[in-house]
């Protein structure tokens, strides 16, 4: 059972990292979208291991079902223009930025991992050992942790205001995306409307006289 979980985690980690590398490494955006999809499935597997069933389902539904599909739609809409030539080349500053970020990330990580342990307060050895063991061992799961019932109960009793605000935000995002993506267009009915408006004005003027 335990080794099965370990194998599942390793598979999920490989899928996640490999998908991420494909996402940023491939020249064709459609392959990048497929890499993103792979990463999302790997992370959903990790959510299952972390007892977050509802989030794993939401991850699949929202990301794989909506976001990646949206990306693929845009890639297909742009066609061959989506593949930009000479990508990631001749940009020394961006390489400097990437290397600086990587170096600082690795430095911070190694600092966290290998820093000397803070001086433990002088307590009994057995107590300290038990405390360490309790800190490393994961707590037992409460009944129904991460299921739809518990999570939904908590959202709809304690977090109802952020939930409704998120709904409003999604509505605003949909309207804004439509407004931005449509752009300025020639409106074929506009001329007709103008003529009708002019005719109305004429008839109004006639009525007034």
């Amino acid at each position: 059972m335990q080794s099965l979980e370990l194998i599942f985690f390793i598979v999920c980690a490989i899928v996640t990292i490999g998908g991420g590398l494909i996402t940023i490494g491939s020249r064709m955006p459609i392959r990048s979208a497929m890499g993103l999809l792979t990463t999302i499935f790997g992370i959903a597997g990790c959510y299952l291991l972390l007892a977050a069933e509802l989030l794993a389902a939401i991850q699949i539904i929202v990301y794989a079902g909506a976001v990646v599909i949206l990306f693929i739609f845009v890639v297909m809409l742009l066609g061959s223009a989506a593949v930009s030539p000479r990508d990631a080349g001749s940009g020394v500053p961006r390489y400097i930025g990437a290397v600086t970020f990587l170096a600082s990330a690795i430095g911070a990580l190694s600092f966290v991992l290998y820093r000397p342990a803070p001086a433990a307060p002088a307590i009994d050895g057995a107590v300290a050992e038990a405390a360490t063991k309790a800190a490393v061992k994961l707590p037992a799961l409460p009944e129904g942790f991460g299921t739809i019932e518990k999570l939904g109960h908590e959202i709809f009793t304690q977090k109802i205001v952020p939930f409704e605000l998120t709904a409003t935000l999604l509505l605003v995002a949909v309207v804004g995306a439509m407004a931005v993506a449509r752009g300025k267009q020639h409106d074929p009915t506009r001329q007709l409307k103008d003529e009708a408006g002019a005719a109305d004005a004429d008839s109004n003027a006639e009525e007034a006289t």
Partner: protein
Amino acid sequence: MGAVPIHWFLLLAAALFSIGAVGFLLRRNLLVLLMSIELMLNAVNLTLVAFNRVHVANHDGQIMSFFIIAIAAAEAAVGLAIVLAFFRLRKSVRSDEAHVLRN
């Protein structure tokens, strides 16, 4: 439950965040930039859920990543709309074509 130590998940999330950040800094295709942002958001979500597994008294981490997923969806929709508008303007999706404000 509990065969996998929690810090392995945190290391996985850190690696994924680094991949996303490096992709965001290196690539110049706007679509790939948006996908790198999605990778970073996913890494943060994984961290939140992993910490929630350690503190099981409430669902705060899971609820927060729930909201982050919703906001990431909105961000992807608006970002892709901006990419479409930019493409209509420049006939390209390269980020260094956006140089109107340069000089």
